[in-house]
């Protein structure tokens, strides 16, 4: 493994794992409530993949943190300020359109990031990226297809998808807002500086959203504070009260 500050590496791994954990949680809230049976299956499958990826990322983070911590400890025993996920992913689901738009915006990011991580100087990260990238390729294909279908569907579905994009757009820029953790990862050849992925990302989503007849809002304002943990939304705390309830109420139990 490349020589890199362990704390920095941990931060990077938490960003990866918290993204998949928090989005996986949100997607799993749909279970049994989707618009059509095929979507129930697809959403459960997406959540399952995301939680599976979480086990790898947080498992590795736990290993570096030491103290015989496990991925479960990292997932269930940290508070809001320790989480490093993008704000976009902790927002409530909204309607099905907003859920799928968020999925598409995130899947597109992952579909560009993971192939880069497959070439990471850190062998373990390269392996996790390789495993995850197959799932992500399928996720982005499906979420893009759905965004196009609903954007270019009826007047109502178009209006709802445009509203979803308008609502979520101010949270997209955070994916690319680099800081010292990213600089350290890039210097060690572990991960690319996310700012360098923006052009490819814009091209990818631009193509899909155009096909969906949706307009990207004319604003580059960005909410920040998730990936560095400085200012999460109010929503994350509520999510954790549910996700971590059993572990907090019955500490030390084996399930």
């Amino acid at each position, binding site marked *: 493994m490349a020589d890199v500050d362990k704390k920095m590496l941990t931060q990077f791994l938490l960003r990866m794992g918290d993204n998949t954990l928090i989005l996986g949680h949100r997607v799993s809230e749909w279970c049994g409530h989707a618009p059509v049976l095929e979507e129930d299956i697809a959403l459960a499958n997406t959540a399952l993949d995301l939680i599976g990826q979480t086990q790898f990322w947080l498992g590795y983070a736990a290993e570096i943190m030491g103290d015989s911590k496990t991925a479960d400890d990292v997932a269930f025993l940290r508070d809001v300020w320790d989480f490093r996920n993008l704000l976009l992913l902790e927002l409530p689901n909204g309607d099905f359109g907003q859920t799928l738009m968020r999925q598409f915006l995130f899947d597109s990011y992952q579909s560009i990031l993971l192939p880069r991580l497959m070439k990471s100087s850190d062998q373990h990260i390269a392996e996790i990226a390789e495993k995850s990238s197959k799932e992500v390729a399928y996720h982005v294909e499906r979420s893009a297809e759905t965004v196009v279908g609903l954007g270019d569907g009826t007047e109502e579905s178009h209006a709802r998808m445009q509203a979803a994009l308008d609502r979520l757009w101010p949270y997209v820029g955070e994916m690319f807002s680099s800081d010292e953790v990213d600089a350290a990862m890039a210097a060690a050849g572990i991960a690319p500086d996310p700012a360098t992925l923006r052009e490819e990302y814009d091209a990818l989503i631009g193509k899909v959203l155009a096909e969906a007849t949706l307009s990207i809002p004319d604003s580059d304002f960005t909410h920040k504070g998730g990936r560095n943990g400085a200012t999460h939304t109010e929503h994350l705390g509520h999510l954790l009260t549910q996700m971590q309830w*059993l572990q907090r109420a019955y500490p030390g*139990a084996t399930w």
Partner: protein
Amino acid sequence: MYAQMIKSEASTEDPKQLKEFQAKIDDNIKVEPRDWMPEGYRKTLIRQIGQHAHSEIVGQLPEGNWITRAPTLERKMILLAKVQDEAGHGLYLYAAAETLGVSRDDLTEQLLSGKMKYSSIFNYPTLNWADIGAVGWLVDGAAIMNQVPLQRTSYGPYSRAMIRICKEESFHQRQGYDIMMKMAQGTETQKKMAQDALNRLWYPSLMMFGPSDAESVHSTQNMAWKIKMNTNDELRQKFVDQTVPQAQYLGLTIPDENLTWNEEKGGYDYSDPDWSEFFDVLKGNGPCNVDRLEARNKAWDDGAWVRDGLMAHAEKKRAAKTAAE
């Protein structure tokens, strides 16, 4: 058992044709969608397969209730996979019902309006984490009792759906029992959760088989058609005999003071569930009937724009393709 109290429909066809049909079933020749079949056979099967499919769909709700609160990442994944399997079972079963000339949308409408039923068990709540174990152990256990013989049912598409479903259900049952093991070997509170789950779900699980039907005309007809393979009492007895030693192994107590081994019959004597409660649940008065139907109706109504949007897009694409040709 996900289909309960299925009434058979009388058949008014030519006696000679009916006799030939019965002979085919007696010879274990599968009936396929294009084959002639009595109208009563077709309608009864639609009712049974439809009710089974609805049970899979509504059954997502009590288990989905714990996905966001699962205690470990692994348990969360197992539960997600299970609920996904159930939605998949719903899909195969609706597809099997469609081969009998009814559409999935029609069946869905009948579920949402309350005209068609789903298994009474899903009108009970999942209140603590051990319930997720108990659902797998008891509810899937009871379902398997019924579904294993149905792999040999006379209608080809139903039989094939059952073969696929049974493979997955036995996984689910083992996973459920594994949760119960962890709970039973856990802290005092975990043991209490496990016993609480068993106390609440034991009798509703026995009810899954339906009231005694040894004397029922419907049961006799359905058994002759091999839509039903055993009587309700036979299956219930088998379930009790299988489950009691498992509960003993867990160190849990079956909530039945009359439970005793009967050497003569080679099975347990046990108390009947309260059948008035069962009929109340069927009438809509179970603890969760209203919640379950509300949740399904809300999902369907809120999703209307999605289904319409995707249909409209598919239509546009088809029109564009035709124009290009």
